[in-house]
């Protein structure tokens, strides 16, 4: 039995990592909630954002937190273009067809990254990464804390956007009723593309934050796609709060499973949780019944 303060430390770091996971999953959840398309290239996009942060750091010594701005802007354009150019024609097609489209995008992304960056792990090294705050017996890594804070700020911004702006309201209208939204004259395809762009911005910020926590390699892509699925299903596909809650739950359960069972078994725990949630509460913890 590990000591109690060790468990507390692991839980805290799990929560902080989980918030970054949650932001990544938030992107998936928002895209699904509005466009009704499951982004099977989500983790690959996340990995791309992580590489972007390492490249900006290597070239300009740009801190990953500053890199969030240009990467997010580029991802918004990328997401908008992907939705407008490729996914919009697919929204009325069957699910397996949409799946194949995004799998193709994922295959292209992950292998293009392999071509460009090679199989070796990359990371960034900033001076505050090794610092930590001491809170009694609990040590909090500065890098992890800042990453989690960035995730919370970005998620709050997105919440506020959907809650208080007219465009956000229009997007929610599309999500609630596609036909109704068109009847009242909303430009649905533009709003869909905007949503995908915003989802991509979540991924960009989460990716820039994540490079402070883990090294990036191309195979992270498919792994993060699966992780994002687990999180949004547990939290509730399409629910924004659910994505963050799911992220924290998975972050903590991964950290605890790594401590108590075996690090390699940690995702088995997550998938077990996913199966349970699907069966007992298919709409997710915070989701609404369809």
């Amino acid at each position, binding site marked *: 039995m590990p000591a109690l303060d060790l468990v507390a430390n692991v839980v805290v770091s799990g929560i902080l990592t989980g918030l970054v996971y949650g932001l990544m999953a938030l992107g998936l959840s928002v895209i699904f909630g509005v466009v009704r398309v499951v982004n099977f290239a989500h983790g690959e996009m996340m990995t791309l954002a992580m590489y972007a942060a390492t490249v900006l750091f290597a070239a300009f010594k740009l801190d990953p937190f500053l890199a969030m701005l240009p990467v997010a802007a580029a991802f918004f354009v990328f997401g908008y273009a992907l939705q407008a150019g490729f996914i919009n024609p697919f929204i009325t097609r069957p699910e397996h*067809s949409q799946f194949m489209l995004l*799998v193709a995008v994922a295959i292209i992304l992950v292998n293009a990254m392999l071509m460009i960056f*090679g199989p070796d792990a990359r990371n960034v090294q900033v001076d505050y990464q090794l610092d930590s705050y001491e809170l009694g017996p609990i040590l909090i890594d500065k890098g992890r804390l800042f990453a989690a804070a960035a995730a919370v700020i970005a998620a709050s911004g997105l919440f506020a956007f959907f809650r208080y702006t007219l465009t956000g309201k229009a997007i929610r209208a599309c999500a609630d009723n596609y036909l109704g939204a068109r009847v009242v004259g909303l430009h649905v395809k533009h709003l869909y593309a905007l949503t995908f762009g915003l989802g991509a911005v979540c991924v960009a910020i989460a990716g820039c934050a994540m490079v402070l926590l883990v090294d990036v390699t191309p195979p992270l892509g498919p792994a993060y796609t699966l992780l994002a699925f687990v999180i949004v299903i547990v939290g509730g596909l399409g629910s924004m709060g659910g994505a963050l809650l799911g992220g924290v739950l998975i972050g903590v359960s991964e950290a605890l499973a790594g401590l108590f069972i075996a690090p390699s078994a940690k995702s088995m725990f997550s998938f077990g949780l996913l199966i349970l949630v699907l069966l007992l509460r298919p709409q997710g913890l915070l989701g609404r019944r369809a």
Partner: protein
Amino acid sequence: MKRSPVLLAVLAALLVLLPLLVGNYALSVATLILYFAYTGQAWNVMMGFAGQLSLGHAVYVGVGAYAAGSLFFHYGIGPWAGVCLAIALCVALGLVIGFLAFRFRISGVYFALLTIAFAEFTRIGFDHLDWTGGPGGMFLRVAQRDTWDLANFRGPPLMYYYAMLALAAGAFALCAWLLRSRAGYYWQAIREDEEAAQALGINTFRWKLLAVAISAAMTAVAGVFFAFYYNNLFPEQIFHISRSIEIILGPVIGGVGTLFGPVLGATVLTLLSDGITEALAAVGWEIPGIKQVFYGVVLLAVVMFLPNGIWPALARRLRL
């Protein structure tokens, strides 16, 4: 549909005589095509006929392969008993997944994600199962590669080719029969509109389970073939989501719900992948990943421009 039987006969004759015409390398490519045609056909029973999207079919390949492989590895029991065990286990697994999903009314995207979850769960489980070798893998002993030993399924590449040809042909015939059977019509009714099917008095729960069971049983056999053809099994490879995607690619590219779709899709994709490798080797661009990028671009183009797959478009053109 008058010209279909002729086409089929020509194709069958060509495939039976193929080993006389080509060398060992081409034969191994042909075996791979037949393998994907077979697994695609199996997946198609669930998705193409009954409309249940499975993204975790690798779980049946893996469980089937490990079932027969373990019997052979630990007890020296040949694949004929192994295939029975594999089918029994995979049908049971499929029924559990199907029962849970359909009983709890999980459908569409959620069902697809559930199948992924089961496959991943099983993958990590096998990674921690020492009896089957864990992540280090299981290696089946190869005594000889010269004579046809059907009892132990050991022999030259030609034997594996004909075995896979027989399986693919059998699957084609089975699917052709299924489509015209009572089950086939019920499945198509469920696929088109489940509520309407239910209103007509079809027990959709039971018929969907049947589709899962048949699909799982067929895929289990592919797993046994995989185990004895490649002779090494790693959880990271056999259960990986990219294996499930490989199974799905053929029928989706060829045409979901059609008989020729999985066969055509498997042929096109395998030859494409092989052709890209050769072409890149010829021009000397051997950067890791470049092949898959080309592959992805072609995939993207096909799903963009041929939404129903290649076969329906081709069949129209050929007036089959």
